[in-house]
C-alpha cells in the first residue's frame, strides 16, 4: 500500500538514490575535503522591490550568520539563520528563520560528480536533494538536480508540512574559457509545482559574475532579469581548524516582472551561487573553477612545525 502513496513513492526514489550515492566509493579527497575544520561566517541579504506607489522601494535587510563544519572527505554539516534587520516587505519576513541546517556529501563516480544533501534548505524547505554534474569535455557539461521537500517555517508558531513536492531540473552548460563566459539552459519542475525552462548567460570577471537570464513557467509566464555575484574579501585567507570570516559572496538578482513563484528552486548550501556552482573547486575543475581562484587559502602553520 505504501507504493501507492505519492509521498512514500517519491521519498523512496530519492532515498534510494541518496543511499546508492553515499555508499559509492569516494575518491581520495584533497584540499577542502582533507582536514576537518569549522567556519563561522555572516553575510547579508539585501532586497528592494518597487511594488507600492506610496513608497520609493520596499526594503528587506537580513543578517545571515551561519557555519560550515567540514569533517573530512567532503562531508559537510551546514547551518544558517536568517535574522531580519529592516523589513518593509511584510509580516511574513519579520521572524527569524532557518536558512539551512543540513548534511551533505560530495563525491565522484568516474566523470560524474554528485552531491547529496538532507536536512533544512532555504526557501523554507526541508527534505532530501541530489545534484549531478557530468562534464563531457572542457566546454560542455550536463547537469541535473532532484529533490523531495516539504515546507517548514516560523510564523508566531512553528509550522511544518510533510514532504509533498518532487522537484527536478536537467540541463546543459557551455563554458567558453577564452571569454570566461558560461551559458546554462535547464528545464524542470520547480518548487511551486510549475514546469518551466530557463536560460542564463554568465560573464565571469575577477571576483564578480554578472548574468542575464530569462525563464518561462507554465503557471506564471515569462520573466527575466539579471544576477550579480561578488566574492567578498579578504581574498587571502589562512585556514585554521576554527575560522571566522565574512560570507564568501554577496549576491543579488533583479526580476523584471517580479514573479516570485516562477521557476524557483531552493539552495542546499548557505553560500551557494551561480559563480562557484554546486561543487567544491578541488573536486570539480570545470567552468569558473578553471579561472584564478577567488580565495587563496594557506594552511596555518603549527608552532612546532618547521617550514
Amino acid at each position, binding site marked *: 500500500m505504501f507504493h501507492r502513496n505519492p509521498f512514500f513513492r517519491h521519498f523512496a526514489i530519492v532515498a534510494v538514490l541518496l543511499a546508492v550515492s553515499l555508499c559509492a566509493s569516494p575518491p581520495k579527497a584533497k584540499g577542502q575535503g582533507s582536514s576537518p575544520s569549522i567556519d563561522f561566517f555572516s553575510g547579508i541579504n539585501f532586497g528592494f522591490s518597487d511594488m507600492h506607489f*506610496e513608497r*520609493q522601494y520596499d526594503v528587506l535587510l537580513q543578517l545571515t550568520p551561519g557555519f560550515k563544519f567540514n569533517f573530512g572527505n567532503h562531508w559537510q554539516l551546514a547551518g544558517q539563520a536568517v535574522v531580519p534587520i529592516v523589513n518593509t516587505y511584510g509580516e511574513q519576513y519579520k521572524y527569524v528563520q532557518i536558512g539551512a541546517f543540513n548534511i551533505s556529501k560530495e563525491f565522484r563516480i568516474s566523470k560524474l560528480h554528485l552531491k547529496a544533501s538532507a536536512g533544512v534548505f532555504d526557501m523554507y524547505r526541508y527534505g532530501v536533494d541530489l545534484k549531478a554534474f557530468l562534464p563531457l569535455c572542457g566546454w560542455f557539461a550536463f547537469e541535473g538536480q532532484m529533490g523531495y521537500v516539504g515546507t517548514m517555517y516560523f510564523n508566531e508558531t512553528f509550522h511544518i508540512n510533510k514532504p509533498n513536492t518532487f522537484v527536478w531540473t536537467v540541463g546543459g552548460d557551455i563554458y567558453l574559457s577564452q571569454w570566461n563566459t558560461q551559458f546554462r539552459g535547464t528545464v524542470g519542475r520547480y518548487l511551486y509545482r510549475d514546469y518551466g525552462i530557463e536560460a542564463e548567460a554568465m*560573464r565571469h570577471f*575577477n571576483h564578480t559574475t554578472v548574468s542575464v537570464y530569462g525563464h518561462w513557467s507554465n503557471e506564471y509566464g*515569462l520573466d527575466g532579469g539579471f544576477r550579480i555575484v561578488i566574492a567578498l574579501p579578504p581574498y587571502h585567507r589562512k585556514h585554521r581548524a576554527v575560522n571566522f570570516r565574512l560570507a564568501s559572496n554577496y549576491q543579488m538578482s*533583479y526580476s523584471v*516582472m517580479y514573479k516570485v513563484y516562477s521557476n524557483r528552486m531552493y539552495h542546499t548550501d548557505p553560500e551557494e551561487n551561480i559563480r562557484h556552482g554546486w561543487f567544491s573547486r578541488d573536486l570539480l575543475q570545470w567552468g569558473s573553477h578553471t579561472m584564478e581562484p577567488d580565495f587563496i587559502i594557506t594552511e596555518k602553520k603549527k608552532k612546532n612545525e618547521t617550514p
Partner: protein
Amino acid sequence: MKHHNINIIAALMLLWLLPQTGKSQQYTGISGLVHVPSGEMNHEGDAFIGAHFLNKAMTPDTGFIYPGDGKKYHTFDYYISLTPFSWLEMSYVCTERIYRKDAQGHVLNWSKDRYASVKIRPLKEGKYHPAITIGGNDVLTTGYLPGHTDVQLYFCNFYVAATKHFTFGGNELGVTLCYRYYLRGYNSKWNGIVGGITFRPAFFPQGRLIAEYTGNEFILGTDMLLWQHLRLQASLKDFKHFYGGICLQFNLLGKKYTY
C-alpha cells in the same frame, strides 16, 4: 539668471583643472558624448553605478509632465551598466517620475520609468576607418506581454554611430557622426543626423571637452574621473540648462586605464 549661468560655466572650467577622463553618454550609463551616442566603447569589464540630473529641457515632452498642473519638471535617473566584452555594453536605467503632489504642490510620491540600453560595436576603429556602433536606449518593454497594456518607451531610440579620432602633436580630436531615430513622435526633434566633436589635449590626456548637436540644440560639456572611481559629467544645453551626473566606476577585470 546670467550670474547663475556664469557660475555654472566657471564650475565647468574649475572641474577641468582636476584629473579627468571619460567617454560617456552618461545619463544612460552607456558610452557616448552627452546626449549623442558615439562609436566609442567603454573598456571591457567596466561597470558603472550612477545617477544623473535630467533638466526638464532635455526630458521627453510626454511622460514627464505632471498631469495635475500640466508642467514639465526636473528629474533624475540612476543606473547600472556593464561592458562584458569590448564589443558589447548594456545598462539598466530608472528615471523618476512625479506620481503625486499635495495641495501646496509638494511632491508626495515618485514613481519610476525603467528601461534597458544596449550597444554593439561591429567595427573597431582602424587607421583609416572609424569605429561603428549600433544600439538603442529603452529597447524593451513589458507592455507587449499578455495582460499588460502600458507601452511607454518614453526614451526609445535606435542609432548607428561612427567615431574617428585624429591625433596631432599628442592632442586627440574625436569626430562623431550618428543617425538616430526616436520611436515616439514627441521626441522627433532629436531624430536624424546628429554628432559632435571631442578634444583631448596632449598636456592633459585624461581630459575631454565635448561639443555636440543633438538635432535640436547645442550642448557643451565635459567628463571627469576622480580617484579612479568617481566619475562626473557636467554640461550645458544652449549655454543655459545644466545637465549632469555622478557615478562610481570599477573595472571588474582589475585593469587600470589612463582614459
